[in-house]
């Protein structure tokens, strides 16, 4: 009986020791800076043969907080012009800002940027491919339509991961069957071609 009592006491004491040795200090916990949040997406379109660069940017510094993202469109596109485009993703909550574009490029098999152009503004084409030969969407071309009068439309940009890149239409940039999880999505409007 005595040995059992000793065991019993040991158990009690060890419980206290175990529980007091970790996490129990009442110090103030450190803040968490969100790591993989994309706060900022910037699309830069440079006209082939020279001209004004068009920048489309969305920035949401409070993530899923109440503040809406700030969307800026630097100017209009020229009629019947080919633009070379790049897409950049940043986490500006970190200092210096973390470049998420690199992660997307490294894990290109699971990522794809989708572009939906409305209003007949032009055609977006992919210039980059992953190891399976499917598009990624960080390097693109935008061919605007030929128009005499200014026309308005929109460009919707969506980054998905864990999407099914082999599903029907996905490699052509159609998001309908892609599935997966949306990392960032913005509708840039109005976009003008003149």
């Amino acid at each position, binding site marked *: 009986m005595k040995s059992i009592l000793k065991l019993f006491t040991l158990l*009690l004491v060890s419980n206290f020791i175990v529980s007091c040795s970790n996490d129990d200090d009442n110090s103030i916990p450190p803040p*968490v800076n969100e790591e*993989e949040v994309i706060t900022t997406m910037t699309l830069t379109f440079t006209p082939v043969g020279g001209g004004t660069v068009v920048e489309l940017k969305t920035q949401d510094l409070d993530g899923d907080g109440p503040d*809406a993202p700030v969307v800026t469109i630097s100017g209009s596109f020229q009629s019947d012009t080919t633009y070379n485009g790049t897409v950049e993703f940043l986490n500006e909550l970190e200092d210096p800002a973390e470049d998420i574009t690199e992660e997307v490029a490294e894990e290109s098999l699971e990522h794809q940027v989708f572009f939906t152009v409305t209003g007949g503004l032009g055609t977006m084409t992919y210039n980059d491919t992953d190891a399976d030969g499917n598009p990624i969407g960080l390097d693109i071309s935008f061919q605007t339509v030929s128009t005499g009068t200014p026309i308005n439309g929109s460009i*919707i940009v969506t980054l998905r991961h864990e999407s099914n890149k082999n599903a029907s239409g996905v490699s052509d940039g159609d998001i309908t069957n892609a599935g997966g999880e949306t990392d960032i*999505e913005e509708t840039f409007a109005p976009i003008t071609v003149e």
Partner: protein
Amino acid sequence: MKHCVFIIAVFLLGFTAVGQDCQLTISGKIQDFHNGEPIVNATIYNKNTETYTTSDLEGNFVIENLCKGSYQITISHISCETKVIEIDLQKDYRNTIYLEHHVEELDAVHVEGSTITKQTVTGQETLVKKDIIDNNSAANLGDIVKHVTGVNSINTGNEIVKPVINGLHSSRVLIMNNGVRLENQEWGIEHAPNIDVNVANSISVIKGSSALAYGSDAIGGAIILEPKSVAVKDTLFGKTIAGFQTNGRGFNINSSLAKNYASGWFLNGNLGYKQNGDLKAPDYYLNNTGSKSYSGSFQSGYKSFEKGFEVYANYIDSEIGILSASHIGNTADLVAAINSPVPLISEPFSNSIESPKQDVSHLLAKASGYMRFKSFGKVSFQYDYQSNHRYEYDKRVGADRDKPAVDLKLQTHSVKGDVQVDKLGNYLINFGVSGRYQDNFANADTGVRRLIPDYTKYDLGLYGIIKSNFSDKLTGDLGFRYDLNHIDAYKYYRESRWIERGYDEDFSDIVIEDIGTQILTNPVFTYHNFAISTGLMFELNDNNTFKLNYSLSSRPPNPSELFSEGLHHSAARIELGDLRLGKETSNRVGLSYLFDNDTFSLTLDSYFNRINDFIFIKPIGTEDTNRGAFPVWEYTKTDANLIGLDTNLDYYLNKAFSFNVKASYIYGQNLDEDLPLIDMPSFRLNSSVFYSNDNWNGFNASLNYVFVAEQSRYPDYNFEAFIASTGTYELVDISTPPPAYNLFNFQADMTFDVFKKSKLTVLARIDNIFNTSYREYLNRLRYFADDTGRNITVQLQLNY
């Protein structure tokens, strides 16, 4: 049979001079342990001489003309277990022997033909017995307690199953495991109870808050798991259950071994493992729904009527995959999922568990002891420690791929003291005190803002309960409880959220530091909770019993309701807690009618539960983020009515055939908005026909039919969302309940004598015989996929 335990207090009152050989006597006086009254007509048997005697009107007895040597004296009394005393007789021997006479009658209501006792007198309480637990060895607690009418479950898939008692769940349902209140972050709907049902010998489900000895905040009810009670005799027995399931290609094994000694010492243990791969709906695999769980428990101690102690430890670790199609990024993904008749991810069967998944471990350790004092009662003490560690993994990218998104460790220390006074004849008084210290640690290394903040919490509880037999027919109880809860948290708020909530005006005094985009705060709250439970049980005659119970209870808001602030990926919604929430208060009246005769038994449990300041979550609008627009759900409060009726009917046609019908209906209303309450179980009917034939190796078979109605009473929280990829607004139908469904299940078992003293029970069960496709309103994954299809279980149980 009465569960009586005898004890002898050895008080040597005196002795006489050494006599000659064979002139010695053994004498004594037998008294009631509680009030010291003599016990008349106890039988005293001397095994050596094979002679009997009985105690007289003063409780005295004498055995004369004994020689030196050792004797075995057996004392027995009506309806009590027999007790044996060994005496090494060298001189005349006299004892006062205290017998435990009637305490258990008052202590608890006995269930016929078993030693399992109920916890309350007038509460609406139902027991789930060991055979149901054994037959469902691979099941979760939430699925097992559904055998009680009026109890449902709220699910996140098949493995995360939370009990719902009369429409209430999570923090409103208290779970006790062997006397320890389970502290396992029960606030979240996707946080299932961390418990292996195989440790329980019986599970008691109490509707409403009448079990005040355990807590005052169980507005929904309590689920009390009790291990097998220790028999004070020399035994060694064990049990092994192994099962196989076709759906999910799963298996489970559980083994337990118990050793008891007549001296009162006992030792037992239990080990279990179960796993399954992807489950299957009738038309497709439910990808990433595999799970793995292992568990073990150990119990040892000493038990006698007068004193005893116990050490107990229990550990369980579960890894549970979450349906991959349910992990979505924004409202457009949710709309696509709801509108698609099949899951958007559909792959072949796999055993592997990928993200999203949970990995939760729970350690429980306790030490307890009790002593009984004659002419007074029983005093017990307990200390317990629990450590609950929860990891949740999301689909993440890059270097964070294998990093958990949630890493919470909740540690709880509790002490309690309990006194039962049973010397007062028809009154049994029970009072006690409990204290608890809790520490929640939210690891910052996840790189994801904390869902639940770091906090420490202190609780102090005081309670008193009195039970009385007014007459043979009328029993009553009255209990009160006071609880003090004090919570001290450190929480980082997003600055924009802090201002949007108006906290900068109302809570500026709790700000510690502004670190730029976030604000560090130190919310400290203290709550005082009073609870009352009282009732009467009237046994009109052998067949008819009425019970009336009233209980008042209150529950402070849990950390999730206070502090939530952020995006819930699986639901594609932003959830916001509210620092301004106060406690909710329930006034519940339960009225029961029980009828019982040889062939027919009926239980009608009706209740009216009015909850003031009932805390619930509802949508208040949408917010734009750069992932699209999300609905914002905010914890808020309303006055609510919950009114319901649970029925259970058994009919024994003859030795072979019997029938059971269970039905439950609940009406839940949000009074402030005059809307139905969300997530209320719909009407359900569960009927079974049983056949048994002892001549065929104890053959049992049952056919079970379940009908679940469509929930027609639901709040319409649907909204329209802008879908960027199509440039249109679409309805997000998150409210409409799925249609009614019918399920058929079949089970059969036989028991064979094997080896020398062992029994082997072979059981086969088919769930969802017709492979019916259905979705359940209370399953959070109903937007994404059908429930599981047909499953065939084969289970072997060896008792040895």
